[in-house]
């Protein structure tokens, strides 16, 4: 690989930060290991200035660009594309400032989510959106995917917390949308960029709201004899306008996986389902919320209810929940994490359906989900070397998605569309909707070089619908396998 422009990239960011050798294979997937892709290089700029130079050069050469944060995305959004260059933020890790009075943080896009909360803590503040991957995922990636997390039930997902961004677009132009102290004026472009999955440019800097640490926090777990009962309990709590900060459900397989892992949280293994509820705020409100949960949990047959006695126990209960996906690695080498939204009154029905779909295909399914938001994660353990199992997994994933959409839900709760759900955009939108999206995209990236072959299907939906499985695993992005 002796292309001249690659040498130019080396001059911009330093030779160590342009990767073209055999070790590039390490970047071939993100958190969706079913999909692989190999581009021409990986580039790791240090800041906005370097990113501008890199993007200008790539524009001049007409090379497609894939933005990448930590690569924990679960829909293949950060998978390299053939002929493209992956531009990563892994070296952009500086926290520029934390303004304790304005409760505002200004960070580089590659800062890891939980690192911001750690830095904000001495000021009595924290960053609220807490994806389960928060120990690793970047704030830039969170913005690009508009990520959620257990506590987003109360605090809302990323978009509610982004105050400003700095974006380097496909041509290498800087769009400086860092917030002025007053209310934003003009069009809400920040809102547009949040959730754009890397299609509008490289986010290099982000300004985020911080929240005061809550006065009082209580966490309880309730053990249910069936998944149905736990789901019903949540549906009723939602109907009663419960003010909890997080409402999560874990099923038996997930509990077992967590309890076998280093994140063993003391979840009772005999539970068919576990409800994890947290309330935060003033002492009085918190007590009210917890009382309501207790009452409903008993009504729905909870066998045991336990509350965290101290900080350490609360941390353990959450570490277990947040390690749940990874812990499923104990069940099989790979995990397919579905991400769908069900109307919250129909939780039980859709969960039961997902179980049935998996059972019929002889697949091992674990459920762990943000029940409060109706955001389900049916997780299917499999082995990517077993072609037939892979086919069954994808089929199950597709059926679960379709079932949700049919019942008034949505195809992604928080993980984005990426590669995985691209063709499913047609189930939710018609050609006119999608054309509008393309037009917005073209305004920012007329050559469609940013994260191509992702999110928006290029073919008309009619063709897509006749296409069969959502994507062909292993190699659809030009992987050398």
């Amino acid at each position, binding site marked *: 690989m002796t292309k001249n422009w690659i040498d130019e990239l080396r001059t911009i960011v330093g030779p*160590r*930060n342009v*990767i073209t*050798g*055999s*070790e*590039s*294979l*390490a*970047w*071939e*997937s*993100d*958190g969706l*290991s079913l999909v692989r892709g190999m581009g021409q290089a*990986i580039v*790791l700029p240090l800041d906005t200035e370097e990113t501008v130079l890199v993007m200008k050069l790539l524009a001049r050469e007409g090379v497609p660009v894939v933005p990448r944060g*930590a*690569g*924990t995305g679960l829909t293949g959004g950060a998978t390299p594309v053939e002929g493209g260059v992956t531009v*990563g933020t*892994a*070296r952009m*890790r500086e926290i520029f400032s934390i303004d304790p009075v304005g409760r505002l943080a200004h960070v580089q896009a*590659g800062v*890891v989510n*939980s*690192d911001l909360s750690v830095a904000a803590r001495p000021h009595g503040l924290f960053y609220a959106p807490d994806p389960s*991957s928060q*120990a*690793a*995922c970047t704030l830039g990636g969170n913005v690009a995917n508009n990520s959620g997390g257990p506590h987003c039930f109360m605090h809302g997902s990323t978009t509610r917390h982004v105050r400003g961004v700095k974006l380097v677009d496909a041509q290498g132009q800087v769009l400086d949308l860092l917030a002025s102290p007053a209310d934003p004026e003009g069009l809400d472009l920040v809102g547009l960029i949040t959730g754009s999955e890397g299609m509008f440019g490289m986010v290099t800097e982000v300004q985020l709201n911080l929240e005061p640490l809550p006065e009082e926090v209580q966490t309880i777990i309730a053990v249910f004899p069936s998944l149905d009962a736990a789901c019903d309990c949540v549906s009723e709590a939602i109907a009663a306008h419960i003010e909890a900060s997080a409402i999560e459900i874990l099923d038996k397989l997930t509990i077992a996986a*967590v309890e*076998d*892992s*280093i*994140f063993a949280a003391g979840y009772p293994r005999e539970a068919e389902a576990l409800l994890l509820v947290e309330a935060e705020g003033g002492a009085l409100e918190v007590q009210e919320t917890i009382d309501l949960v207790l009452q409903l949990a008993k009504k729905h047959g909870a066998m045991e209810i336990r509350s965290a006695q101290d900080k350490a126990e609360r941390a353990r209960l959450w570490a277990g929940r947040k*390690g*749940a*996906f*990874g*812990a*499923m*690695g*104990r069940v099989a*080498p*790979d*995990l397919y994490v579905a991400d769908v939204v069900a109307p919250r009154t129909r939780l039980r029905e859709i969960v039961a359906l997902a179980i049935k779909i998996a059972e019929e295909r002889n697949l091992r399914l674990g459920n762990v989900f943000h029940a409060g938001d109706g955001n389900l994660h049916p997780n299917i353990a499999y*082995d990517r*070397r077993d072609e037939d199992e892979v086919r069954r997994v994808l089929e199950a994933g597709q059926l679960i998605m379709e079932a949700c959409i049919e019942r008034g839900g949505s195809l992604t709760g928080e993980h984005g569309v990426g590669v995985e759900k691209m063709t499913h955009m047609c189930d939710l939108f018609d050609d006119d909707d999608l054309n509008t999206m393309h037009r917005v995209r073209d305004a920012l990236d007329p050559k469609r070089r940013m994260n191509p072959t992702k999110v928006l299907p290029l073919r008309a939906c009619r063709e897509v619908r006749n296409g069969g499985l959502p994507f062909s695993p292993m190699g659809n992005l030009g992987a050398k*396998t």
Partner: protein
Amino acid sequence: MSSAIRSLPLDYDLTLDCIHCGLCLNSCPTYRQSGRESEGPRGRIHLMRALAEGRLEADQDCVEALDSCLVCRNCETVCPAGVQFGALMESARDHLPAPGLLARGLRWFGFRLVLPHRRVLGFLAGAVRLTQLLRLPQAIAPLLGQRGIALAHLPVFPEANKRRNLPPICPSTSERTEAVGMLEGCVQRQLYGDVNRATVAVLNACGADVHTPQDHACCGALHAHNGDLDEARRLAQKTIQAFEDMGGEPDMRIVLNSAGCGAHMAEYPRLFAEDPLWLPRADAFAQRVIDFSAFVAQAERAERLKKQLAPLAPRKVAWDDPCHLCHGQGITAEPRALLDLIPGIERVEMPGAGSCCGSAGIHALLYPAESNQLLDAKLEEFTSSEADVLITANPGCQMQWHGGFSRTGKATRPQHLAEILAASLAQGPQVVSKAKPPKKG
């Protein structure tokens, strides 16, 4: 599950435990340093899997990605899928070529000809001491760049009488309750004989007679971490044999004051997974191995020790977890609890105490710039903790910190946990004077 093509016979099944979630990335010092996925745990596992599947050739780039790993095992502590990263990396390195001349030289000269042999070790330590007294390292340092800096700031090897063997048996100094075995180690014995003597003093005070095998040098940990499993196996056999031959109760505990050796010896059985003759012996041996802090922190022993500890001059101490203690053996509470027993001193937490100082076996020699960078961050954290003294429990870490303090002109020197405990013991239970500076253990 062995249908895949295996071009590299590393432990393929271990790679399958990784679910590619990435939760380990930010815990990895080399990933945080370079931002390269190929220098993070997930990427390295991915490369190893690809090597095993024959999808990737072990060329220089790939070998370097794997070789730059510290084998600090921080990734294991955070991995929910239970990936055994250390074991996997050892098995991979065993089949990979060493990435450069220095690494190759170290493997063949240092690991095979020096470490395993007491006499050679002793001779070399003496020779190095001589050059150190003549300030030769300082003289040639400028020619060697980053590596020279590290060389110039190595601790000076002590005089010969401090490098002598421990007696075969050191009897308990309080009411005798048990006997234990102890490993003197290779580098530890030559460079940090004081640490070994302090360890003995503390164990004796807890009521234990301490037995040491007289003709044993190296446990083989460095060999295993650096791609020489055959030699590691040979040294493990010698070690097991030495302790079996030493006599005493067959289940007598073997106490380790070096985290790296302890973590490795507790995992000896892995080396003999396919050797029915040695596996049971390795199993029985591993059962006996216990870290110094875990052994002493046990309630009755700690109680006995506590009664004999006297106040040290007031100072703040910070515990820096050696990787192979906290990540390799899951031991974090015990050393802290022991420091809390010492009257007069205050223990402070250092941010990032569980993150590697950059010593990492021979990493500091092979990647001096990266190693110094890791250490610089640790030095800053130490300063921010406002501690006066740094306490750790591994010879490599002690050397690394020593170099860092010396290079940045700090007067303080790192101490082993046993040393500060022994210093407090040496004050005697009756001494109340707080002003007296502690005697070296």
